[in-house]
């Protein structure tokens, strides 16, 4: 079934399909990024494919490859019961120029999926009606799921107090309370003349 579908797409878009493979029963089409939307449109509207649900859309970051990002979409046809995975590769090793057409006009679920992909990886979806961050806050810089973003690099909205000599002092005075970790060690807190005792 799925093989017939792959052949159909190969016939319909001879230059768009870069490679196909099937692993663990998942049929995969690797597409030219420029043909992303037209193939998706065909899969949606053709009665032989009838892919009426975009199950998932995500990105995988292969930091050492060129093109760097792989946009992966999983499609499902509820009426015919088959699935297909679409892939397209975009972006240079610096992570710039990663752009691909948006699928929001075809499937409504692409809206949030693409916003998440943009938020997490910085892949731009051309034609998306509302492309802004969804999981991270607007002040966040960078894209956390990229391989080169350090996992523990925080960008706090409520910063620590800046007191020379001491790290990570919580932003409240000692008259309000004290964090547990500071309780034992912070002898300076007892001394009213010490500048650190705010």
């Amino acid at each position, binding site marked *: 079934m799925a093989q017939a579908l792959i052949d159909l797409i190969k016939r319909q878009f001879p230059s768009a399909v870069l490679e196909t493979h099937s692993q663990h029963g998942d049929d995969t089409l690797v597409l030219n990024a420029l043909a992303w939307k037209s193939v998706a449109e065909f899969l949606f509207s053709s009665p032989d494919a009838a892919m009426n649900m975009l199950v998932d859309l995500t990105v995988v970051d292969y930091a050492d490859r060129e093109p760097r990002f792989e946009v992966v979409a999983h499609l499902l046809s509820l009426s015919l019961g088959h699935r297909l995975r679409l892939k397209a590769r975009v972006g240079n090793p610096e992570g710039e120029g990663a752009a691909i057409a948006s699928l929001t006009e075809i499937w409504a679920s692409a809206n949030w999926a693409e916003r998440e992909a943009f938020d997490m990886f910085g892949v731009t979806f051309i034609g998306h009606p509302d492309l802004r961050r969804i999981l*991270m*806050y607007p002040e966040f810089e960078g894209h*956390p799921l990229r391989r080169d*973003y*350090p*996992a*523990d*690099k*925080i*960008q*706090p*909205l*409520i910063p*620590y107090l800046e007191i020379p000599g001491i790290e*990570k002092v*919580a*932003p*409240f005075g000692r008259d*309000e*309370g*004290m*964090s*547990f*970790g500071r*309780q034992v060690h912070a002898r300076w807190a007892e001394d009213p003349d010490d500048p650190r005792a705010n």
Partner: protein
Amino acid sequence: MGELKRSTQVIEAGEGAAFATTKLESMLAWAQKYSLFMYPFVTACCGMEFMSVSSPRYDFSRFGSEAPRFSPRQSDLLWVVGTITQRQAPILKRIYEQMAEPKWVLAFGTCASCGGFYDNYACVAGVDKIIPCDVYVPGCPPRPEGVLDGLMLLQDKIQSGDRRPSIVKPRHDPAVDQGLGLIDLKRAVKA
């Protein structure tokens, strides 16, 4: 009753009548500790245990902390239940600031206490990096019994006027009780 009992004096006035004197602070603290109006700041997994604690089997209303108030201005105990992310942090701080004194904060679960295993770009390593915290309840999520222990610990602290942060300890810590290390203890059990 704790502190209240110690500062109270009953004076017999004859013919079965009597009156008692106590300190005003003790009396107020006694009233406060049995009428905690709580603000449940529920975000994550611990919320499921929070439901259990409030449901009939564990029922924390027994401790006078029945009424949930979803307005910070009417509440005096802030339950921080679940992971606080960097995005959520300003909201938590704002809610804490809106609460009127006296106010207490209870960190429910490991994430609220110290961040748990979310040592990453998105999470705050414990609410005490943002707001002062009175009682920490460990566990991922804590068992309801542990939460009730935490609540009683807070009541004791309210009564004694102690604002130092403290952690709910295991009820029986054999290593502490008997002056034995855990390895020694295992040997002792075997022998």
